[in-house]
């Protein structure tokens, strides 16, 4: 039997307390957890982590071979790293892997056969959405709209074949929206021109708590979280070409809507109560303290992101355009302060930690950038020589990134 670290019991106690007092936010995480796409708060900020900034071959703690392709990023719960992959001629074999964070050994792997459509653009694959966890379970979502829940030991808990239940819930180019967990609800968006909905699924039973119609337009964005504040429960923010909707994660009721349109690829994020939306370049709004409405803050046409979602660090908004140019804007005003040329194209969203940004371009180049008020500086580069399309993860002072073939762990040299 695997011995759980002491933190697990503490975490369970906190979870129980959170449930008792009705805290409607992602279950309190172990300090080293990275539980979903762009981290616990879905904003790409790795709080309290101290990642290696001098990336080199020597900072690679381990590199493991993967059984299939994936644009999905890794997540981490305690000392387990979870990852999805897809394989087979038709990309219909769906994998979930649990990897020991310390050793890189595969602890378990489960495979499934997609129940929804598996065709997509060659650049994409079924394992495009990043999985999520509530600290007790893993929720693996795929482009085929299969949503699979296992416990941390790999035991299947429930299986939703949204692609079979709603047969037009697919996009012929592929789907990429990653799920988020808020309280006891895992929230997914399956949106295309043929059919579009968002659903809140009970994390324990797999049953649908709510399902709402969404704009019938192709949409690759992921939901994000407006954290609980001032006694107001957390809200899910669902983005589409129409804009951004704040949704009660328990009921699916729409609380407010930002209707000025938004991108269908990079996703919004929330930092310190401000929502940063890829809309008309970049737009920020500030929800009211009771969460029922919002006010406009600023709009900047020259901070528009391409595929990677925006990040906020040191009071700067960071975006990357399709030419690989990083733009830094003043988070208070939206004024563009400086630009920095990186190499190549980017699909993955950078990660912000210990005053640095961690980028991986599509060609497999890693860039560590130190952004300051006046300028940004590349402090280290590393060529991993494999196509990388995922967003990296941070856990317990280590950085994780995957390609179609491998998963890497970077940590300080010992």
């Amino acid at each position: 039997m695997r011995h759980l670290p002491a933190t697990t019991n503490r975490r369970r106690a906190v979870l129980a307390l959170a449930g008792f007092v009705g805290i409607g936010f992602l279950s309190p995480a172990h300090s080293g957890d990275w539980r979903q796409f762009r981290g616990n708060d879905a904003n790409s900020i790795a709080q309290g982590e101290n990642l290696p900034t001098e990336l080199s071959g020597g900072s690679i703690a381990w590199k493991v071979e993967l059984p299939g392709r994936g644009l999905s990023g890794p997540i981490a719960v305690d000392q387990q790293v979870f990852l999805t992959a897809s394989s087979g001629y038709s990309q219909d074999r769906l994998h979930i892997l649990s990897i020991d964070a310390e050793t890189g050994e595969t602890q378990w792997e489960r495979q499934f056969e997609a129940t929804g459509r598996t065709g997509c653009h060659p650049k994409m694959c079924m394992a495009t959405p990043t999985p999520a966890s509530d600290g007790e379970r893993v929720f693996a979502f795929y482009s085929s709209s299969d949503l699979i829940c296992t416990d941390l030991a790999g035991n299947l808990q429930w299986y939703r074949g949204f692609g079979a239940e709603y047969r037009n819930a697919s996009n012929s180019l592929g789907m990429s929206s990653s799920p988020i967990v808020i309280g006891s609800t895992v929230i997914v968006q399956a949106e295309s021109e043929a059919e579009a909905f968002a659903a809140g699924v009970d994390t324990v039973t797999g049953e649908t708590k709510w399902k709402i119609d969404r704009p019938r337009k192709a949409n690759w964005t992921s939901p994000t979280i407006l954290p609980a504040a001032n006694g107001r429960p957390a809200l899910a923010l669902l983005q589409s070409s129409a804009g951004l909707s704040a949704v009660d994660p328990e009921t699916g009721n729409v609380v407010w809507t930002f209707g000025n349109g938004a991108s269908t690829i990079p996703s919004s994020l929330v930092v310190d109560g401000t929502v940063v939306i890829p809309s008309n370049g970049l737009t920020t709004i500030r929800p009211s303290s009771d969460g029922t409405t919002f006010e406009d803050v600023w709009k900047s046409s020259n901070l528009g992101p391409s595929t990677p979602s925006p990040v906020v660090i040191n009071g700067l908004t960071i975006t990357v355009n399709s030419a690989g140019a990083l733009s830094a804007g003043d988070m208070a005003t939206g004024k563009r302060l400086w630009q920095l040329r990186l190499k190549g194209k980017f699909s993955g969203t950078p990660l912000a930690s210990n005053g640095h940004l961690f980028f991986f371009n599509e060609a497999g180049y890693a860039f560590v950038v130190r952004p300051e008020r006046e300028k940004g500086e590349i402090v280290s580069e590393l060529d991993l020589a494999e196509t990388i399309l995922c967003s990296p993860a941070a856990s317990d002072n280590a950085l994780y990134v995957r390609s179609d073939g491998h998963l890497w762990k970077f940590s300080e040299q010992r």
Partner: protein
Amino acid sequence: MNRFTIPLATLCLVAPAFADDSADAIRALQSVGEHATGAAEARTALQTLKQGGAANLLPVLKAFNGSSKLAANWLRSTFEAIADTEQKAGRGLPKGDLLAFVKDTSESPSARRLAFEWLLKRSPQLEDELIPGMLLDPSPDFRRDAVKRLIDQAAAANADAAVALYAKAMTGAVHEDQVKTIAKALKDAGEEVNISRHFGFLTKWKIIGPFDNKDQKGFPVVYPPETKLDLTAEYDGQLGKVKWESIATDDDYGVLDIGKQIENYKGSLMYTTTTWQSEKDQAVEIRLGTPNAWKLWVNGALMFEREEYHRGTRLDQYKVPVSLKAGQNTILVKICQNEQEQDWAQDYQFQLRVCDRTGAAVLPVTQAAANNTPRKEIR
């Protein structure tokens, strides 16, 4: 009393109880449904079967047959949980039973492949022993492996031997990439290859249109061909009177290119129909590729519809399971073009084939045989 009596009696009592528990557990896994129905029972069943250990591996695999895809995933995950536990405990899997199961083509292709892959972990030589005999296997994965071996052998063989190996490989090939590789090699060697027939594309159609689809409003509109298929009729179309015309394609991949062969009427839709003679009642897949919105009817029944424009097209983009009746079957397709102006949004086309679940063509009976079947008027 014999000292073995009590344990034996206990076993006699307990073993059937275990068997009953396992059978009930397997039924619970097979009973899962959409919307997570039966998941709670299935979670318990998985643990019951896991505790039963390796003895449950074969029954779990056998339960794949007749189970839904969803249930098969529960069965698969249960198999993996048991096998994983057994191997980590240093216990072997029941190799003989699993091997026999892999060889039994009446069993589920997915389950056979699962058993094969677990056997390979400890017995990699099985690949050489089994795969060469799986060229026409009901599992597309096994077929693919067998075809690959022949392609590799052909690439290393002399010219005459290579042609024979490629020709043999073609008999089992169901995937586009392998068919393309083989076809190119055979054509380069001067051999004739009929790719369209190999895949089972339908190449001869009747077509009528254009009907109005401005602002993409025509998709839900029920134009006359949807209610009555009369190939002699004339209707009011988008640009005037329209009537059924013959159209055919000689494209290797069966692409009927409305935009090039007729005209790329923007904001329009067309109906195409053909007949397919089946020698028996049979379940097949109709596989369609198109970048346009579409609806498909078989013998007057709507099989599927999809309103998506210009998100790419490819062979076997959509797989629609259908039941064909013995004799003549009527296939009707509605193809819709919108008014997007981008270069990448101008295609107005589709390709359609009839195949089995492996992707191997299912061909209509020959014209001679068809002539022996009473024909019905398409009205």
